[in-house]
């Protein structure tokens, strides 16, 4: 079972103070970058499948130079090889253009299964897996958990709404975009990190993936950002100020008044 896992290098914006730069993106200089959280579950799933069924796990990311640490950490998590796909012309690629880059990479490396995370916290789009599968002409599914292999096919659950799931069977090769929580990503030991410290991570550029500059970056994208803005402040909640004690005291009063204390 050969598996390719596609990884995204994303800024951690969940608790950061964000600012807009130039009207079309956020200011990213001060943000910490890391592996997209959903993708961590995809790597773990790939490694667990390999441990059961044999085969090889390859990780790949279309990401700038700094992302090497993410690829190396993925090797420490149990991936067998990593590829770093980057070219200056990739800057500004939307989901479609990024999927095109990955599709060309994967076409040269036939595998049984492609795994991704369903969503990424930066674009919140959830589009890459489905686009990539369509470009590769393989079946796909999103929000996947409980993956099982049987007779050259794969069976899994897909998350629907309200706690409902659907059980689905799919032929291989195929692509699964996983849900968070489908496994428990392993702890990476210092020993595992040391073991992969000198492994080579090939860097592939535009021509290595058989594309031209017009097919990637802003030019190769299908959507363009017109404006980006922070929602105006002062909308929404009345903020209870003061020390934690004082705020808690006011909150207790409000809860009592509104039936929040039974």
């Amino acid at each position, binding site marked *: 079972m050969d598996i390719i896992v596609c990884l995204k290098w994303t800024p951690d914006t969940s*608790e950061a*103070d*964000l600012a807009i730069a130039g009207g079309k993106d956020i200011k990213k200089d001060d943000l910490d970058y890391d592996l997209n959280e959903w993708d961590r579950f995809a790597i773990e799933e790939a490694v667990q499948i390999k441990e059961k069924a044999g085969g090889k796990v390859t990780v790949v990311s279309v990401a700038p130079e700094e992302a090497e640490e993410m690829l190396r950490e993925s090797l420490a998590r149990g991936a067998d090889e990593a590829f770093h796909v980057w070219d200056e012309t990739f800057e500004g690629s939307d989901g*479609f253009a990024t*999927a095109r880059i990955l599709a060309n990479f994967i076409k040269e490396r036939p595998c049984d299964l492609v795994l991704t995370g*369903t969503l990424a916290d*930066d*674009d*919140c789009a*959830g*589009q890459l*897996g*489905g*686009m990539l*599968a*369509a*470009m590769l002409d393989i*079946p*796909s*599914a*999103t*929000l996947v958990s409980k993956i099982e292999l049987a007779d050259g096919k794969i069976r899994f*659950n*897909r*998350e*629907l709404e*309200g*706690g*409902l799931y*659907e*059980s*689905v*069977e*799919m032929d291989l090769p*195929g692509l699964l975009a996983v849900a968070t929580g489908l496994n428990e990503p392993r702890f990476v030991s210092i020993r595992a990190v040391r073991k992969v410290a000198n492994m080579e991570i090939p860097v592939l550029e535009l021509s290595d993936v058989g594309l031209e500059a017009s097919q990637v970056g802003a030019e190769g994208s*299908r*959507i363009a950002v017109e*404006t*980006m*803005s*922070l*929602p105006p402040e002062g*909308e*929404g*909640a009345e*903020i*209870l100020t003061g020390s*934690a*004690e004082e705020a*808690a*005291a006011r*909150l*207790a*009063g409000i*809860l*009592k008044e509104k*039936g*929040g*204390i*039974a």
Partner: protein
Amino acid sequence: MKNVFVLAEHRKQHLRDTTWEALAAGRKAAAELGADLTCILLGSNTDGMAEILSKECGKVLVADDPGFETFNSEAFMKALPAILKDRGPFLLVMGNSNSVLDLAPGLSVVLDAALATDCFGLEVVDGKVTATRQMYSYKVNTTVSFKNADRIVLTLRAGAFPYTLSGAESGAREKVASPLGDGVLRKRFVGFVEAEQGDVDVASADIIVSIGRGIGDEPDMDVFQSLADSMGGVLACSRPIVDKNFLPKYHQVGTSGVEVKPKVYLALGISGAFQHVGGIKGSPLIVAVNKDARAPIFRVAQYGIVADVYDVVPALEEKIKELKG
């Protein structure tokens, strides 16, 4: 733009509300673009659903095939390009549901169309379509435009486009032959798996204390259970808490978990991603504690405290005990 198409979504032979929200957005766009509005229904034994649709939309395209019964994205991806092929430029809208999440990205590729997902705004300016969505932990609003204005696919955030059913139309129904052919699919629906039931029924609780990522990686769960107990409420959570196995799935509030309607919803360390907020819309009082003043939860809450939950919760429990005497 010649056509605005709305894809009807169904499950277990019933149209889903996302259909009506998509229709509301599609109607607005069609009026502003001067385009024809058409609903597309791909289903099995479609008569009942087609009749309901034709009361809300002036034109309904229907293709009937057993392969469409379970909203299998592969069947839809095969059929829709064949159905849309000779109908000219289009804007295709559908709800951003978990079923559509499987369909829209791949469909946009086979239709050679641009895609924007999870849009809460749809505008037409000088005949040009733009869509507004959120990025970066749902904290930033982004308006996007489309390079090829003749082929656009949009998925719409639940709740963003309110609708009322009028029943006033008597839409023309056009039956089209199913383009599925032999019906052999590489992905096959096996069955539904119903939600796991637990010892706590979050859906019917009047008072909910709900915890999220902000409680940290090694949380002291007793602190939160104790607060919930002091309020006479139950403990619930957002997705990351279930992912980390701190609470079972039946505690999870949100569109993929349980939808709740308590009198009071106290959100502790919950950022307020829309999937979570979608599950608490029915709560008359939402109160949030989060150390990030920009957390989206503060936009839906009536009261908020900007602080670390561990600084607030013990003090809050103490004050509540005092008030109870």
